């Protein structure tokens, strides 16, 4: 039972990317940061009451599923696309979508191309080890175009190639493209083409067969979304817990009833998670949003109330 193991260990072991701007990287003090990293911290806060009680395991595309299935990590929070075969054959459970992404193309404005349909004959830098290669191959094939793939293992290396014009376009999830563009010397000289050629719902994974643990991870993420809906932030969550009269806030924060107990958690589990990383919106804008160096719009990841897809089932 994973929850027991985590409690006993006193730490959550969380698999993350070895380095992907906005999602997972280390700062100058050696502290992990990023969107995927924050998910881990939220789960750690919910289960252990301490958002710092996480051990991060950097994983490559190749090693991530083995690490999960062998029990080396408790959660895999590493921009992993939810697909049918992964959910079934690889014996992993996706517990929800934290980020709706799609594969796009980054290109120099100077090239003068407006649509991905004009990319015939282009050299394309791809970050390997993901679904990207398959999407790309299908896209070009179905449009009757040819291309020259340059598969690169690490995003940093791929960007280097793109910047030196070793390839004409860089394809990856649009979030990664935006992250890359933001770090360029002159971001305005590059654009992301309008076509998004795939659906890339990213989210944390757990092993098959531990339903309670899957529920904990899934509902922790949902709690963060709900918190944004309910206007709870890392600053006001304590105050709201004491003062709020909204019934759903009470249920979520454990002041009204004990939802946590149903899942083996403490009553204040959601409160701890929100206090640790903030609500979904805070997390987004801190790591990826327009105020961050990455500068992404919410887009599909806006709350459903704002025309996005982020939607939390009711807490009751």
């Amino acid at each position: 039972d994973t929850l027991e193991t985590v409690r006993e260990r006193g730490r959550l072991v969380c698999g993350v990317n070895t380095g992907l701007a906005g999602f997972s990287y280390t700062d100058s003090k050696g502290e992990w940061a990023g969107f995927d990293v924050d998910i881990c911290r939220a789960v750690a806060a919910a289960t252990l009451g301490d958002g710092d009680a996480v051990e991060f395991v950097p994983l490559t595309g190749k090693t991530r599923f083995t690490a999960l299935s062998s029990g080396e990590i408790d959660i895999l929070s590493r921009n992993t696309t939810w697909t049918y075969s992964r959910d079934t054959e690889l014996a992993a459970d996706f517990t929800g979508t934290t980020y709706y992404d799609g594969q796009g193309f980054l290109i120099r404005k100077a090239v003068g191309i407006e649509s991905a349909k004009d990319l015939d004959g282009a050299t394309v830098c791809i970050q390997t080890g993901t679904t990207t290669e398959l999407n790309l191959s299908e896209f070009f094939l179905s449009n009757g175009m040819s291309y020259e793939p340059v598969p690169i293992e690490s995003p940093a290396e791929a960007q280097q190639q793109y910047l030196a014009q070793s390839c004409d376009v860089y394809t990856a999830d649009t979030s990664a493209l935006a992250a890359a563009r933001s770090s360029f010397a002159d971001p305005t000289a590059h654009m992301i083409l309008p076509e998004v050629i795939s659906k890339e719902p990213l989210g944390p994974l757990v092993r098959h067969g531990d339903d309670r643990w899957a529920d904990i991870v899934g509902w922790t993420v949902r709690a963060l979304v709900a918190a944004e809906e309910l206007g709870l932030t890392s600053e006001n969550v304590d105050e709201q817990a004491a003062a709020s009269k909204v019934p759903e806030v009470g249920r979520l924060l454990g002041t009204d009833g004990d939802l946590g107990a149903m899942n083996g958690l403490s009553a204040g589990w959601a409160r701890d998670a929100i206090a640790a990383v903030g609500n979904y919106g805070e997390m987004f804008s801190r790591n990826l949003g327009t105020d961050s160096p990455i500068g992404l719009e919410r887009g599909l990841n806006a709350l459903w109330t704002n025309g996005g897809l982020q939607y939390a089932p009711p807490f009751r």
Partner: protein
Amino acid sequence: MPAPSFCRTETIAPRPAPEARSGLAGRLAEIRRRGPLQAAVSLLSIGVLVWIVWTVLSWSLSDTWSANSLSQCREILADHRHKACWGVIRERWLQILIGFYPRDLMWRPILAFGLLVPGLAWLLRVKAPPGGRKWGFVPFAVAPYLLWGGPVAPVLSAVLAGLAAWLAYRCGARAWLALCVAVATFAAAHALPVSGDVGLAPVTGREFGGFLLSVVIGLCAIVFSLPLGIALALGRTSRLPLLRLVSTGFIEFIRGVPLITLLFVASTLLNIFLPPGTNFDIVLRVIIMVTLFAAAYVAEVVRGALSAVPRGQTEGAASLGLAYWQTQRLIVLPQALRISIPGIVSTFISVFKDTTLVSVIGLLDPLGLANNIRADSAWTGIAWEIYGFVAVLFFALCFAMSQYSMWLERQLRTDHR
């Protein structure tokens, strides 16, 4: 014809050599003597060297030490784009050196290496120092504990057990009896109600990184591969066909596949070969694999040295009544190991360089960290500075070691005891 005859009556005293034409004039004369082609080659070689130094210097001399991000560097450098941005090294050098090792515990790796380096030097001396090489092993026992930490009780029990076994052995007990004593002491000490938490704060392998990781993997590999390699070498030269077959197969298998595939095995497959549910530190798994890898190469070095020990030595030992193991331990191995020290040092250098491959399976060694740092949006797009820094560090260490091994080789060649 009458032979001319001559007899010297007084001897000629030695005179000092005529002043060899030195300085520029001498050089020029020498060049003239050698002809224009050689002169051209010399000039070209000097030109290439100067050009390399000039290129490197003009790139690296840039006033960017204080920059906090690549964009700041770009501002500082303005239009001299082809210059280094050193801010990243100022900000991250410690991380590149020790990875994520807790900063407040830094004294531990420093102390550990302060012990290990003299220990290694002691072990690898040409002549066995008085009292044997055994004291050189002490740091290897202490250093891992310093690095990984954890409760001190099992370590103490192990030390006690070792002491007891040694005492028993000195008092004439057979090897197996000493082993029993060791086990018993360990069990007894373990059963004592010592507080389990006393000891250094534990640090997991995952927190190792950067050079610390490379050095730890490299050192562990070489230290553990030494006994394993010796065993394999003995196996390969054994008279038992089965043992020979197994050792040869193992050695050739390991030497036949790239280290990368072994590392894949460590990262993705090792758990599959072990009982269900086993699961241990990836760093430990990598160390195991690199150890096996190094052992195969050490085995080949030692095998060469074993065959360099004359057959007469074993015969001499046999005629004195020494048994097989006594002969190996007292006569053959001491001589073989002494011969193989330079080879072992070379193996160590290449294993140490090969530790960079762990970045391919996602460990944050200096190269893995380079990637990670480049994911920080402040430093995206930086490459040369980090690679250069890492290259210089590797060069310094490996060059020092290779010089040492060459020196050793010279010592061994002139050492006619």
